């Protein structure tokens, strides 16, 4: 199967710029610099590329929101915070082919008129930070970064900014607060970052994988890109797969691949010969699918949305038949309780309550009315009652687990314990 992102991942020297260049890295730049920035944006619009950071927003359209003829400095930010349970695909790009990502950043910066770009990298990714420091230095030495790149008159500097252990900093406005040296507090939108972002200047925040798609698009054109995937979700998607499967790992699949095919053919099926119980396809912030629902679901934005969940960031995890869903939800809630930034009451209190109630059920002290209470608390966390959608990111999973596996929760409460192996 042909691919867009991972074709050189088996080459252990691909991190080195000479090898990467021999395999075509930075080749798109000549073409890009011969185009007007708006033409680059147009091409990306035509490709239908959608953000891979979770929301699936059209990349070219987002770039188009940068005010024309603004006197302010424009910034590009590459979001490499990657902290959502289940998601580890950006790390694969950086470890295996960092120059593809840097090339993508140069293309994006040229299109939006940024002369400075930052990579916001999660603090724990220390070795990946080293890889990128080296790659950036190499790209400078070869003249792909710095002043007057390839005599185009275009200048670009790329710096890394290390986070320090806070999931919320992946949310783009929290990221901006953290970039500016403060606590990672999200900000009310609007204004959107494209209008008022870093230091109140127009700013585009894009995900690592989103940016890494750009060299292919500029080399081969939007039409070639659209040959992959579906009409509304063109291209491929990196899926990081974990949980109860035989072959966890990062896979590049064409958008639209059926979930069942992915599990059976790519992941080698459910481990230990067990049956499938559930799948979260897009990361912990989205709804769980029952085994039955997975048979209708495909890996693209529309299909996942149609099944009441989201392709999100492609953090795909599988639960076998022995998995206790109460415990699964307890672990999910613990994460959000730990990571809430605490600015908004429904989120700060809600994540705490949910976590406490699920823990009490898990430990055998639950009451039947706790289930409705969980739904109630969750409903108070959604629909714009908070500054950012972090609160929704716990509420939606809670509602899905409790509704879809209600009988199991009820039994857990009645027995005061779990009746499954893995509980």
């Amino acid at each position: 199967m042909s691919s867009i992102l991972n074709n050189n991942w088996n080459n252990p020297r691909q991190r080195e710029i000479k090898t990467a260049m021999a395999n075509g890295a930075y080749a798109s730049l000549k073409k890009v610099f011969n185009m007007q920035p708006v033409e680059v944006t147009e091409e990306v619009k035509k490709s239908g590329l959608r953000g891979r950071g979770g929301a699936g927003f059209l990349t070219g359209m987002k770039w188009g929101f940068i005010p024309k003829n603004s006197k302010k400095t424009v910034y590009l930010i590459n979001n490499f915070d990657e902290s959502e349970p289940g998601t580890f695909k950006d790390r694969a790009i950086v470890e295996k082919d960092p120059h593809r990502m840097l090339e993508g950043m140069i293309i994006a910066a040229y299109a939006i008129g940024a002369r400075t770009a930052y990579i916001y990298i999660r603090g724990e990714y220390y070795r990946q930070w080293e890889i990128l420091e080296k790659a950036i230095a190499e790209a400078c030495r070869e003249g792909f970064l710095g002043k007057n790149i390839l005599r185009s008159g275009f200048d670009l500097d790329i710096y890394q900014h290390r986070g320090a252990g806070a999931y919320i900093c992946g949310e783009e406005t929290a990221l901006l607060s953290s970039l500016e040296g403060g606590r990672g507090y999200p900000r009310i939108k609007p204004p959107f970052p494209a209008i008022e972002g870093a230091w109140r200047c127009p700013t585009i925040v894009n995900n690592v994988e989103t940016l890494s798609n750009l060299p292919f698009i500029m080399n081969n054109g939007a039409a070639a890109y659209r040959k992959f995937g579906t009409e509304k979700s063109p291209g491929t998607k990196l899926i990081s797969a974990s949980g109860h499967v035989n072959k966890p790992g990062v896979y590049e699949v064409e958008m639209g691949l059926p979930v069942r095919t992915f599990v059976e053919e790519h992941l080698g099926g459910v481990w230990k010969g067990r049956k499938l119980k559930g799948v979260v396809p897009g990361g912990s912030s989205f709804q769980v699918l029952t085994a039955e629902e997975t048979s209708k679901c495909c890996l693209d934005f529309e299909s996942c949305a149609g099944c009441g969940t989201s392709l999100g960031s492609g953090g795909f995890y599988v639960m076998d038949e022995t998995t206790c869903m109460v415990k699964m939800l307890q672990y999910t809630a613990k994460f959000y309780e730990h990571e809430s930034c605490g600015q908004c009451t429904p989120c700060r209190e809600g994540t705490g309550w949910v976590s406490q109630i699920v823990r009490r059920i898990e430990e055998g002290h639950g009451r039947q009315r706790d289930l409705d209470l969980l739904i109630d608390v969750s409903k108070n966390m959604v629909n714009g009652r908070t500054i950012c959608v972090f609160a929704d990111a716990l509420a939606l999973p809670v509602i899905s687990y409790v509704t879809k596996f209600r009988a199991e929760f009820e039994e857990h409460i009645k027995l005061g314990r779990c009746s499954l192996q893995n509980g």
Partner: protein
Amino acid sequence: MNFTFTPENKKKFDEYVKRYPQKRAALLPALWLAQEQNGWISGEVMEYLAGLLEVTPAFVYETVTFYTMYNKKPIGKHHIQVCNSVCCWLRGSEQTVDYLKRKLGVNVGESTADGRFHLSTVECLGSCGSAPMMQIDNDYFENLDEEKIDQILNELNTE
């Protein structure tokens, strides 16, 4: 004792400041640098950085306390952080945590008596496909089992 950057680190710090249009943005990288030099972020470190970056010590304090990776007190020589988040749990991280507790003779959040190891549990480290896993200092150790843990700790003990 007052904290100041070594001349070498001061040079790095000056480089960081140049990367941003506003001085205070260099606070996170400056804190990393200070932690590397000092092991943890003490009150003196915060006051020193506040002075360098022309912000109040309170601003520095707010930032430091928001992020989990800045040490607010000295910790053991090697920091063992076991992921005990959603996907690692699916592949047995609870047993990994239990084994480490027994092996080191400490609870989560404690250091060994000789000060060599500090044990923490953390949320997802972006390594879910190679669970169970832990981070020790700057390195990830993945696909753990008891034998592998023994070997890793032995190597750190004999270094």
